[in-house]
């Protein structure tokens, strides 16, 4: 019990996901993605990735389709704001089921 034997006497974070805790719980809106509007998805080529570039939490992958790690996404909405084709929309977290909430790294899909 306790942190007596912890290796440091200061606050010292090494690089790695989530040193500040699972910040996904802060989210009130979730980014939802429509691949039919997304440039790399439509062309099936590495392109655009503005969402990946702008995400301040580095939780969007540079993949086709881009994926969001919801364990750490704070729901800031910068990706939705920056997407040139408006393929990302922010949706109230209350609209998702408990199951969805626990799932990490889910692919973005259009809400039906």
């Amino acid at each position: 019990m306790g942190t007596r034997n912890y290796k440091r006497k200061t606050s010292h974070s090494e690089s790695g996901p989530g040193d500040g805790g699972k910040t996904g719980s802060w989210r009130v809106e979730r980014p939802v993605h429509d691949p039919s509007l997304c440039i790399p998805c439509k062309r099936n080529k590495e392109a655009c990735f503005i969402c990946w570039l702008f995400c301040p939490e580095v939780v969007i992958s540079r993949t086709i389709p881009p994926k969001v790690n919801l364990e750490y996404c704070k729901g800031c909405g910068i990706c939705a704001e920056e997407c040139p084709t408006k393929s990302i929309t922010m949706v109230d977290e209350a609209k998702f089921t408990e199951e969805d909430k626990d799932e990490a790294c889910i692919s973005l899909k259009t809400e039906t």
Partner: protein
Amino acid sequence: MHIIENGNVAAAIGVRLCRANVIAAYPITPQTPLTEKLSEYVEAGEMKAEYIPVESEHSAMAVCIAASSAGARAFTATSANGLLYMHEQIQWAAGARLPIVMCLVNRAVGAPWNIWNDQQDSISQRDTGWIQMYCADHQQIIDSVIKAFRLAEKVSIPVMVCYDGYILSHTYMPFDVPEERQVDEYLPPFQPEYALRPEDPANLNTVTLPDVRKDVHGEMAHGYMEIRYLLQEDMRKALNVAAEVEKSFAEIFGRGGNPYLEDYRCDDADFVAVGLGSLTYQLRVSVDTLRKEGIKAGVLGLRYYRPFPDEAIFNALKGKKKVIVFEKALSYGYEGALASDVKSALYEYLAATGNLPVVQNFITGIGGREIRTEDLTKYFRAATQSRVSKEPFWIGLKL
């Protein structure tokens, strides 16, 4: 080798011998000649260090924090309002546990503007988590700088070496300059526990939550409270480390003694004056005068103010009739901070015996007001005869 130089040069030679890697400072009277001397050493190639002239004291300490985090031996110096301007970064250096050494050339703080000596500047930084050493002569300045680096690096706590502006900084006295090889033996190159390296990145002193939490490896890491407790714990332990630092200093350099206190004719004394810095040497003259009159007087100078050597103070003062604390600083609204601390130490150890000495507090030399030895003697004598005042009594006040 014995030389005759001023106190600022004594400090500069000490820093040079300690091979500080980074010096960042902003000039302020009466510290200026110290940093000028260091910049001369660097410019002339006599010292291999990065001298970083900054635009403010806040930046000077910020540079020292960065340099120390990267594993460099870092030094700065300041006085009075420069120290106050650093205040935020001073606390940071302590919380970040960086072994920075700073010379603090004591000067009165504004307002009103005043460049002369008192100790309000360093005393006002008492609670920042820095170790504070006080020097009474030039030999103690150079020796304390060397000890300060060793102590700071052993306990990972920054150290402030305080000495009186003008009285020590600008007067000339003979002192011994140790050999380079002696200092190299005493103070090996700084080996930090962790130093910032591009291949091993880390985020230092990040937001720390009120409670403990798991780090990125799943280990429970400290909360803010644990980190601050460890600083307090290590500050108290630093008293023991200071004793070791003093002992090994004596072995290599052939001088030293009591790490915490410097007493003069205290053994059989009934009345003991307590103080910090050069004032305690001046009080020796008063002690000699009072002794000739048959008054058993003595004087006790503190080498360390933080961590407070409470047990050593109690041992030195137990059985005394009166304790007279002379101070060049004040906790406004109450009394001298040192007087409160001395009372606290006496109470802790003696309250149960019911045999507590009376403590009289004198304030003197504020803003460079001349401290006349005959005045010190007069009030010291008066305090041995009866209680002068409950409130701190200001010697030399002309209201």
